[in-house]
């Protein structure tokens, strides 16, 4: 057998499976979604077509735009909250915990909720924030309020808290990885050259951990903008996200073409975020060497 033939054979014996899988469950559905987004709705179903009516509807009907803005806003709020919670944790793990065993334990503790069902974790927040919930009981016990309050649950704040909790591991992992990679000698060199702790953090540690921060933001933003469980469980009224609208279009509204068009918009947004973050990271990488 010629080396070239052998290489090809090796390649395809390894990659035929993945290629088939990727094609049938990812590429084909995406193409179907794209195709259906140009169809015409004909109750109770739709007919093949090529027209931009569905996209025009998305622009013309302001409710879709409102939902889109809300989704972006919630995703941003979740990402920022998650970042504020995760960076100190990752920093603490990477720099302050001296014992390797303790570090591994704490890291695992931060990650392990990923093994628990998403639905269950979102539901937990209902029992914490609800009017009969743990938070209310606690506040009544210490005497801050005299009767249960309903302000904690069924609003956008509750959604942000729930998603921030659920997506924390996706922020902690990349930030921790990037912090851990920073040679300790760089931090010592900065202090040696006269920079106190905070200046060293601002000028050395933070810039060098930006790739991790960027990855964390990309994960959490992408995951939360497409979320449709927390709006249902803890969001209450006026909390519909773009994914909820998509789900409605495919279900109750029986408007697959419009749902597909929305799906395409969501896909474009997420791809845009990933591309932007990749570009930013590339710029950073040139500097990082």
């Amino acid at each position, binding site marked *: 057998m010629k080396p070239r033939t052998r290489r090809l054979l090796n390649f395809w014996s390894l990659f035929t499976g993945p290629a088939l899988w990727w094609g049938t469950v990812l590429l084909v559905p995406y193409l179907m979604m794209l195709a259906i987004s140009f169809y015409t709705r004909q109750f109770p179903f739709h007919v093949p077509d090529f027209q931009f009516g569905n996209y025009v509807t998305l622009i013309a009907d302001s409710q879709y735009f409102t939902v889109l803005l809300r989704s972006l806003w919630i995703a941003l709020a979740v990402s920022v909250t998650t970042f504020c919670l995760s960076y100190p944790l990752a920093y603490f793990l990477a720099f302050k915990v001296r014992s390797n065993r303790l570090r591994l334990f704490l890291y695992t503790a931060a990650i392990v909720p990923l093994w628990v069902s998403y639905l269950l974790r979102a539901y937990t927040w209902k029992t914490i924030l609800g009017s009969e919930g743990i938070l209310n009981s606690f506040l009544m016990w210490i005497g801050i309020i005299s009767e249960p309050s309903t302000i904690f649950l069924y609003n956008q704040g509750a959604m942000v808290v729930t998603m921030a909790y659920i997506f924390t591991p996706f922020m902690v992992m990349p930030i921790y990885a990037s912090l851990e990679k920073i*040679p300790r*000698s*760089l931090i*010592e*060199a*900065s*202090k*040696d*050259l*006269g*920079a*106190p702790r905070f*200046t060293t953090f601002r*000028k*050395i540690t933070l*810039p*060098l951990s930006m790739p991790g921060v960027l990855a964390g933001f990309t994960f959490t933003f992408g995951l939360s903008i497409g979320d449709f469980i927390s709006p249902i469980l803890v969001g209450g009224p006026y909390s519909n996200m773009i994914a909820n609208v998509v789900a409605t279009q495919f279900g109750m509204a029986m408007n697959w073409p419009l749902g597909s068009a929305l799906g395409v918009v969501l896909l474009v947004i997420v791809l845009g975020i990933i591309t932007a973050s990749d570009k930013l990271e590339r710029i*950073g990488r*040139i*500097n*990082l*060497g």
Partner: protein
Amino acid sequence: MTSILELHHLSKIFRGGVVAVDDLSLDIREGEFLTMLGPSGCGKTTTLRMIGGFEYPDAGSVMLDGRDITNDPPYSRPVNMMFQDFALFPHMTAEENIGYGLKIAGVGKTPTAERVRAMLDMIELPGMGARFPSELSVGQQQRVALARALVNNPRILLLDEPMSALDAKLKESMQVELRHIHDRVGITFVMVTHDQTEAMIMSDRIMVMHAGRIEQIGTPTDLYDHPRTAYVAEFLGASNMIPATIRRDGGDVVACAGSMTVRLDRNTGDSGTRSLFMRPEKIRLVPRESEAGDGSSTFSGTVKELFFSGNMVRIDLDVGAERPVIVHRQLDTELAAAGLPGVGDIVTCAVNPEALKLFDTAEVAAMKAEEAAA
């Protein structure tokens, strides 16, 4: 000379009870190039890091210009360090790296730029300021690290194994260059290395460390020619350490090992079993049966092995002692023309009593055991 830095009874014990530095006292003189020399784990780096403020001693004090800086953080000491891995900030250009200390100190833009340019000229990298560390060669990175550590005019520059990342050729030229830079800037340099040749080439004084203590401190020639302990004798350069019996022979004191009998300095005055120390290059090959004159004693041995290393030949002689006597013969001609003996030949050697020293056998045995364990 006035001392710039004093270490008083410095001790550092790491977790797990490892004593890294053990009651170490030292005076460093203004403007000198001092090297802390020793194998890994001897406490030299820990000592350097305590001067830099990266470790704090468990006991003792660090005095800089008469001021106690023992517990001062690194950023408030007028001492700068060149790190072993250079520790250049990868997200900053060479210029930004060099100017970092000035920027932190609040020096204005124009004077900073001027000073950085002057430093770039000094390290012979003019016009390379806009490059990132990843775009520089290892040698260039080292120069930038040096410039960065010197830019603030520190009272003392600390150098932690500065040559370890360089290949042999570059190492040699940088050793000379660093020495020149030291002479030019007039700043006190304190270097840590495990490379004895490097220490001897570069330093005004060398401090040999062993197990957290100072074994001996002195000029390179002091240490090489007059080692006070077997450890120093073995660590610097090549050496013969041969167990020998010491006895009186008429008016002389002689050392006997196998068929070898050599005269010692008269005032050595000792008897029993000791370790006889001879530098291999101080042993000369002489024509057979001749008397070497100048008070040297002669002995014969059988050539066991020859090792050629370019500029010299190492000859291992069997004299019937516990281990062979190693002789170094510098070559000033091609090997074939040097008239060297072959394996199995019996040759005569001469050695001057001044070149001989005795050390305690127990001390040597302990040292050998430690070496074998390392």
